[in-house]
């Protein structure tokens, strides 16, 4: 990882493209494969992760000097769990419509690798503003990845987009099953790697 300090914009874009959690870092693959069966699922899970990531990053960045180095990971898990519970409870109490759709996703987030990894690699070494932008980038990157996967799988598997009939038939029902998630993720990774190779080649030439 480059050590040169980055601007906030760079940090934000880094999470979406260069270090996209799903397609580049290959983290949190279980939800990426299991839950990206439709655009709506992908969007909702992405939004939930975005919130938890930003809040946890900010919290850890604020209290980083008080964390005993031996119990970093438990502290991260505890922070994530607290934020997940708080968001879950607040949604259930004040935004019942959103809770109905997002409830099960929010509770899954405690075990996501991407959040713990960002806290360990980034938030515990950087100031609040940088951590916020890094969390935003990673969250939006995850949201973007989940939405792309959801779109591909929903259109190919069910012939719909956001539940609206677009094709009128189901091209490959196989795509809504968990196994197809691996194919879709692999396919997207290949595209991202190819794009990287091209951009590196171009830089060398230029």
């Amino acid at each position: 990882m480059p050590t040169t300090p980055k601007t906030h914009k760079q940090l934000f874009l880094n999470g979406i493209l260069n270090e996209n959690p799903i397609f580049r870092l290959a983290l949190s693959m279980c939800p990426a494969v299991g839950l990206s069966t439709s655009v709506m699922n992908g969007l909702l899970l992405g939004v939930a992760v975005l919130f938890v990531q930003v809040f946890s990053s900010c919290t850890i960045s604020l209290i980083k000097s008080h964390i005993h180095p031996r119990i970093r990971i438990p502290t991260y898990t505890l922070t994530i769990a607290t934020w997940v519970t708080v968001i879950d409870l607040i949604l259930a109490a004040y935004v019942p419509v959103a809770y109905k759709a997002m409830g099960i996703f929010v509770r899954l987030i405690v075990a996501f690798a991407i959040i713990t990894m960002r806290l360990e690699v980034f938030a515990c070494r950087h100031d609040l503003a940088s951590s916020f932008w890094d969390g935003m980038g990673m969250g939006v990157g995850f949201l973007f990845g989940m939405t792309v996967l959801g779109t591909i799988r929903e259109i190919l598997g069910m012939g719909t987009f956001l539940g609206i009939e677009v094709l009128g038939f189901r091209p490959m029902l196989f795509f809504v099953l968990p196994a197809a998630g691996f194919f879709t993720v692999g396919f997207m990774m290949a595209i991202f790697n190819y794009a990287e190779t091209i951009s590196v080649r171009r830089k060398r030439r230029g």
Partner: protein
Amino acid sequence: MKEIFKIAVALTVSCLIAGGVMGGVFMATAKAKKRNELLNVQQTVAGLLGYSQARPAPSNLKIRTIHRYIVEDEGGIRSGYLVPVFAAGKTEHEFWVVDLNGHLMNRHQLNLSPERASDEQDRRSAIAGVVGPRKTIRHADEISIAQLEGKRLAYIIPAKFPGYKNAIHVMVALDPDFSVRGVEITAHEEDPGLGGEIEKEYFKNQFQGKAFEKIKVLTVTKSPLAEEHKRYLETKEWGKRALSEQDIRGLRKKYQNEEIHAISGATISSSAVATGVKRIVRNSVHRITLLEQVVRENAIQGAF
């Protein structure tokens, strides 16, 4: 040694802080959450009765709930029914212990205010107070009765049964003649796009209007749903371009006695719902007739 102590203190403190935050938020939101859940149930019930925001439920609509408990002691297993009884303009609750042949064994008066009657813990403690110790009581199921101007409008039965993956929670509404008024899937964890389709109108509305005699022998067929049948079932989706009254009547007659058409790719989920609804309807009808027999045999006035 000192290091271990430090770590232990740090961990304990962080756990306490996290616990404090979560506990605080929980306490602050518990009331609103409970209210939302109740509201959600009420909305589902109103939807099944045919009321919506455009057509709100009349204020004199009353919904009373009968809870069934399993009462167990050395003497054997019996059913106990918590029944609302109105006397002198007030609703009171009684607990009837009924044996397997449907004969009333014990009749207890319960001291249960309407607010407390909606809470499981309060109900159980009230029942435990009257049936005496050395008996275990378990909540089994419940049947709600919707009444409008002294007439029974519908029975509403919330229940759950195993689906393809996990329990499917449903709410079944029955007409006074025990034909199905509607089925609503309230919670499930079936695969999206496959078993998840059970909550779609074209599946759940197939139960609507089926007579009790038909439900008793209901099966699932794998033959596809006819296009006009699907259109008839998807009432909400078509909205304004809905079919005319006459068409609906004709189609209803045509398709009313068909079996349940399974969702393609989700035969197990489909037959789970069909079997579940069948069982719920049969059991509830059995219980309602049994209770009516008890009322008749013992000449109880004003029961549910």
